[in-house]
Structures are given as C-alpha cells and as structure tokens.
C-alpha cells in the first residue's frame, strides 16, 4: 500500500487570489482515486499544481521525489500524464501526430510505433481517423484521443480533468470503462477529477471531496457514494 503521490498542505494562487487552502491527500500506487467538487472548488487547480503550471506552496512528492521547483516538462518526464480540461488536443495536427506527440519524451522508436498500434486497437475510431485533423473529431473521439495520447507516455500516473465534460452519457460510460481497464491492465495509477460523480465513484477506490479549496470529505469510494450529503449535492438524489 505505498503512496505514489503525496500532497501535503498544498496552497495554490492565481495572482493574488488563493485558490487552495492547505490540501493534503495521497494516492495509493496502482489505484483509481477520484476528486469530486463543484465548479470552482479547486479541482483543476489541484491538478495544475501537481504539474507546476501555477504558483503553489506545500509538499508534493511523486514516487518519493519532491516535485518542487521542477518545470512542467520535467514533471511529465517523471511519468505523470495530465489530460487537461478541454482535452488540450492539438487540433491542427492529425490524430496520429497527436499520438506521436504523446511519446515525445521517449527514445524507443520501435516501442513507440507498437504503442500507437495498441492505441488503435483500444480505440478503433482513432485508427479510422488517423490522418484527419484532430479538430474535426467529435467530443467523445477527442477525449479518447487525449487519453490515448496520455497513455503514449507510458505513465505511472494519469491525471484526468473532467473527462466527462460535454460528452453524452453513453460515451462517458465507455470512457470510464476504458479507464478502469487501463488501471487494471497497464497498472496506471489514476486520479480523475470530476463534477459528474456517479461514474467516477463507481470506478474509484478512494474518493476526496473538495469545496472552496479545502478537502471536506475523504474515504472509500463506496462510503462516500452512500453519504447522504454527497448524494444530494453531487449525485442528485
């Protein structure tokens, strides 16, 4: 039960405004964890802090190493893949180029090609559209592409920011099924940040709830899902 990612007293700032007020949590190696919260609660801010994309203080340790002072690119090289809000797809480039970009930090050309093949196997739609401009893909397809691109890194940790955003329910279900499989088969630790709590809680082992920059609840996903307040606020019943 080792922790792959440990966050301690994380405070993050957008200019003068403080968005996170001392967050502390950890991710178990090999597990799926979900961070739930409403709009503006600080979910995206948390992920951005891990990748050092915004100013923050506090301890962030990945695989025992401190991430303080490292540039985003270096953090990525340590094995953290971040699928940002809005997917961050390179819309002007083809699907295949997007996948190649995912492997930009790797040197093993043969294995990279094999991995692209594997992605096409997992996501046949992407193979169909391999030489199409990524911007022409539908929302669901772009999300799949974003996940595939992240996987090309062969990450140890995958961070996903609201992957269900703007997607139809069936597509979201497929997506979360894929995430579950990735976690199980490729042994990738996953932190998925969501407003849409139901599916996230279904695939996660551990859950945290964040409100206005503070963690207000934590526990096993099942227990959190059954909590009455959570049900009312995030699950709608």
């Amino acid at each position: 039960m080792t922790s792959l990612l440990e966050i301690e007293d994380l405070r993050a700032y957008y200019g003068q405004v403080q968005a996170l007020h001392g967050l502390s949590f950890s991710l178990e190696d090999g597990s799926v964890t979900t961070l739930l919260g409403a709009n503006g609660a600080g979910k995206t801010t948390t992920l951005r802090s891990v990748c050092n994309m915004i100013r923050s203080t506090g301890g962030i340790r990945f695989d025992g190493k401190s991430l303080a002072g490292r540039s985003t690119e270096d953090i990525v090289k340590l094995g953290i893949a971040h699928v940002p809000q809005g997917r961050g797809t390179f819309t002007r480039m083809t699907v295949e180029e997007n996948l190649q970009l995912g492997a930009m930090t790797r040197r093993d050309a043969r294995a990279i090609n094999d991995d692209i093949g594997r992605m096409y196997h997992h996501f046949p739609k992407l193979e169909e559209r391999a030489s199409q401009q990524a911007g022409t893909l539908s929302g669901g397809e772009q999300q799949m592409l974003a996940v595939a691109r992240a996987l090309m890194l062969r990450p140890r940790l995958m961070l996903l920011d609201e992957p269900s955003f703007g997607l139809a329910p069936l597509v979201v279900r497929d997506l979360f099924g894929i995430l579950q499989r990735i976690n199980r088969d490729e042994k990738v630790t996953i932190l998925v940040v969501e407003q849409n709590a139901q599916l996230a809680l279904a695939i996660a082992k551990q859950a945290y709830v964040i409100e206005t920059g503070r963690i207000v609840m934590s526990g096993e996903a099942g227990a959190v899902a059954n909590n009455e307040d959570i049900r009312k606020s995030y699950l709608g019943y």
Partner: protein
Amino acid sequence: MELFVNQVLAGIATGAIYACMALAVVMIYQAIDHLNFAQGEMAMFSTFIAWQLIQWGVPYWIAFVLTLAISFVGGVLIERLLFKPLASAPILTHVAGFIALFAIINSVAGLTWDFTIKQFPSPFGSRPFLGSQLISTHQAGMIGVTLVLLLMLYGFFRFTRIGLAMRAAASLPDSARLVGINVGWMIALGWGMASAIGAIAGMLIAPVVFLEPNMMGGVLLYGFASAVLGGLTSPFGAVIGGFLVGIFENLVGTYIPGVGNELKLPIALALIVTVLVVKPNGLFGRTVVQRV
C-alpha cells in the same frame, strides 16, 4: 503570347527572392504564431556580416557557412534577451518589440557600413542561364536554392520529431509542456532557424538589389504578402506565393497602362488582399476548424 511567357518567366525569377524571404517568415510564424517585422533587417544585417567577412579575405562558401552560424546564434539571442521577457505581454506589445528591433538594426547597420551601395558576389555567376535572355545563372541558382530549402523545411516539419515538437509548441504551448516539450527552447530554435534562412535569402538577394541598409524594405513586404498568400502554415505555399507575387508584379507592370514603378507595390498588395478575401486562409493554408 511570347511577351506573356517571358514576363511570367521573369516573374518567377524575381519571385524566387520573395519565396526565399517568405520561407523565413513562415519559419518564424511556425515557431511563434506571429510575423517578425524585423525579419528583413535581420537578413540584411547577416548579409553585411557575410560581406565584411569576404572583405577580410574569407572565401565565399566559408563566409556563407559562418554567416549562417552567426545568424542562428543571433536569432536565438534576440529571442532569449528581447522576446522571452515579453512572453506574457499582450501581442500588440510584441509587435512594438519587432518595430523597435527593426529601428535598431537598421540604424546600427547604417552607422557601421553606411548607406552607399555595395556589390555582393553571387556563387552562381550572372551569365545567361542555358542561353536564355531572361534568367541568369544567379536567378536559376536562387530558384534552385529556394526549392532545396523548401524541401528541407518540409522534411523537417513533417518527418522529424523536433519539427513536430516545434509545431506543437507553437500551436498549444500548454499542451506541449504536458507532453514534455520544452516550449522555450522550441521558440528559440525557431528564431535561430528563421534567422539563418533569412541570412540565406539576404545573401541571394544582395547580388540583385545591391547591398545597402534599406535593401530589404520592399522585399520583406513582398515576402509577407507571399507567405500570407500561400497560407502562413505552409512552407510550400510560401514558395508558390513568392513566385506568384513575382509574376503578378511583372504582369501588372507590363500590361496595366499608366502603372509605373510606384504603383506596382500597392497594386500587387491589392491583388493579394483580393485573393485573401476570397480565400481567407491563403491558397494552401490549412483551414483551422473552430469549434466554439
């Protein structure tokens, strides 16, 4: 008919100049997503450096290579010292930066080498090309070099990892960082490459227009026009655009009455703008799909 063909050929010859300049423009556009208005001045300065080396007795091709290296480093330095600190400033402030750079380079060149015209040698000589009266060996050489450069750039962007990384960094810097690309180096690299290409353009153009600090003004404008006409995302388009602009310019001068030298520029520009109104992304530019 023969006049027409001749003018077209002559247009292609002069168009090679614009095509070469346009390549440098596109190169930097690929790196930083906007136009470097000081590109022409940087090319002019590089050409002066080459001239100075040759004056000091350095053989042409060695001076050529040295100039490329110096220009590359110069481009990187300008980016690191001037534009990197401005990275978070609004775009229009960047444009002001380019204008300032233009003024400085032009002024320093004028002071160092004064404004008298100088001869710059051509490695291709200036004999008639294959006996033709219209294209000299130098012009043929220009066209050849431009095409070779184009092929190299095309290959670079399309088939190399670093070319892909540069495109990604220019397109979406945040996403590029998230795949491990050091965006800062990519931008610096783009500047260095553009500077080197500009140097090549300058050294090819100087034998034709003669070397002096203001030699690049009109050329740069035509270079921009060519790049824009071709579609800023396409080196191939830039070259075609260059040739087309050269041809336009010549045909306009030949066939439209009352058009002296002064009106050639505005008319060529007007034509280009007309084309753009019809095809806003240029002839070969990739239309970027904009989802709200």
